[in-house]
């Protein structure tokens, strides 16, 4: 066989795989979202979900969750990555330990935090044993929506901060140390160096990390399901409900399209805001 075909032949299986199991279902979702149950093409599925009483709360919860979780994670990840980059010994070990939660599935993460916050959980037994409470409290019930929200926030931060961390650590590693030295010589203290050198030069990594993390935040599901159940509807949970509880794939597909639209909007936003002008890269 002619050598120039080798690359195409070698990449063909993965391309086929993607076409079959990603692009085809993806298009299928679009078709279903815009096809009503009686076969008409139009927006009836969207009308269905938009008028559903759970739509606005789930949209609000998802956005609010992303709005709280992502900035907190970003600040934590920046702080942690700066500290890790300064480490001379044991850097890899620390990084491995901090990334362990990434290896835990979100369902398992939800179970872990449920075990902590549940009525019979570790938190209650701890508080009881040191005498702060007299009897186990039910934290995660519908009367405490803020506590449920806070619990999800904490669980999500615990679970997924490390993904920002690894991206930022590698990004910081790419910044030559001469820039810091030059800044130091010309009068910048460490705070100014962070704002004038590190963060601007880290823009490409920040962009990648934020896009990735925000999109994942829009897909939050298992953790919310376990800690909040129906008390805290989110977009992904509603997609699941429509697909499997109400057996309405059209409406579920419409939800999926809404999530996709949100993801695209935010991706474009990050691409725009954290844009690095031509010629201004390292």
């Amino acid at each position, binding site marked *: 066989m002619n050598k120039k075909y080798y690359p195409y032949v070698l990449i063909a299986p993965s391309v086929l795989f993607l076409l079959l199991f990603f692009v085809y279902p993806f298009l299928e979702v679009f078709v279903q979202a815009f096809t009503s149950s009686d076969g008409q093409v139009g927006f009836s599925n969207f009308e269905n979900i938009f008028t559903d009483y759970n739509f606005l709360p789930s949209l609000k919860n998802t956005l609010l969750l992303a709005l709280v979780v992502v900035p907190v994670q970003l600040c934590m990840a920046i702080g942690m990555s700066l500290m890790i980059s300064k480490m001379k010994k044991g850097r890899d070990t620390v990084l491995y330990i901090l990334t362990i939660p990434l290896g835990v599935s979100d369902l398992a993460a939800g179970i872990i935090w449920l075990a902590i916050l549940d009525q019979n959980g570790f938190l209650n037994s701890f508080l009881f044993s040191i005498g702060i409470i007299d009897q186990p409290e039910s934290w995660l019930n519908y009367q405490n929506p803020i506590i449920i929200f806070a619990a999800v926030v904490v669980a999500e931060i615990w679970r997924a901060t490390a993904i920002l961390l690894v991206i930022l650590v590698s990004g910081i590693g790419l910044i030559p140390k001469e820039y810091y030295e*030059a800044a*130091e010589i*010309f*009068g910048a203290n460490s705070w100014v160096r962070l704002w004038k050198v590190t963060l601007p030069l880290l*823009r490409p990594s920040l962009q990648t990390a934020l896009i990735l993390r925000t999109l994942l935040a829009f897909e939050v599901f298992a953790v919310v399901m376990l800690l909040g159940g129906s008390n805290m509807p989110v977009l992904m949970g509603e997609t699941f409900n429509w697909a499997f509880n109400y057996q309405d794939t059209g409406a579920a597909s419409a939800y999926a399209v809404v999530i996709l639209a949100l993801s695209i909007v935010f991706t474009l936003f990050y691409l725009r805001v954290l844009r690095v002008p031509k010629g201004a890269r390292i």
Partner: protein
Amino acid sequence: MTTITVENIKKSFGDADILKSVSLDIKDQEFTVLLGPSGCGKSTLLRIIAGLESQDSGIIKIGDRVVSHLPPRERNVAMVFQNYAVFPHMTVFENIAFGLRMKKAPEKKIKENVERTAALMHIDHLLKRYSGQLSGGQRQRVAVARALAVEPDVLLMDEPLSNLDALLRLQMRAELKSVLEASKTTTVYVTHDQVEAMSLADRIAVMNSGRIDQYDVPDEIYSNPATEYVGSFIGNPPMNFISPDYQVGTIPAGATQLGIRPEDFNVSKEARDNYWPITVLTREKLGSHQQLSAELNGQLFRVNIPNEIEIESGNTLYLMPKEDKKRWYTEGGKIIL
């Protein structure tokens, strides 16, 4: 008045003693070059003066101020780095303005200084560009302009020309010399290139594994190398060191080596009294003169002779070192004055 005083600076990394008690007195407005091969400690010394590295012991003074324990930003020094370190996310203007902005200089002064230094370095048409859009030479100019714009007490340069190609290096060298002469800033310049050192320096400190062997004006360094090391490091080809066995006339007490520059021989094609018969091994024509590698009883050495003398490899040539150019060295490699 900005003198720099380096007193007994010591520095080691692990087991390696990088600087073994180095002292230097740099005069106001003087251009000092730290010269030496890689690993001799010259960059470390510069970084200690800058405050980027801390000394194990010893004192650095800038003017009358002891700065040894101050962070770089409180030393009022400026530095030009080997790989320029021009911030990629700022325009040329912002790069040059960086130091002034850090000092919270008024906007008017910032604009004035940036424009003045940019014009001086011939980059005034590039102020709106980013460094990614500049060539290496242009980036180097930005780095120098950035350093000059803050009007520092001391200008430190760490092999600023070594990343440029040969022709550009020559041009930048001449330009730097005139710009720095005009700025009258006390300058410390690190290089491993002896030609750069000879052409730029008011005084050269030749460094040899963590020590300064000689600190003097370029002419003295060239004609009276204080040690064998300096003689063999400076000059291309370096000074010849020959055992004095063949020498007629007086040999100073304690002298074990005769140091003589390749161009400091009387040359004859016929045998003469007191001339050494040498065998020519190779001859290289270098345009302005020819360079011979020659041998005398197993000792190799180099001779520069005028183009007029016709000679082939394998021929015998007769040499005598010029009396006033002879330098004598002790067993330990020190010059005998």
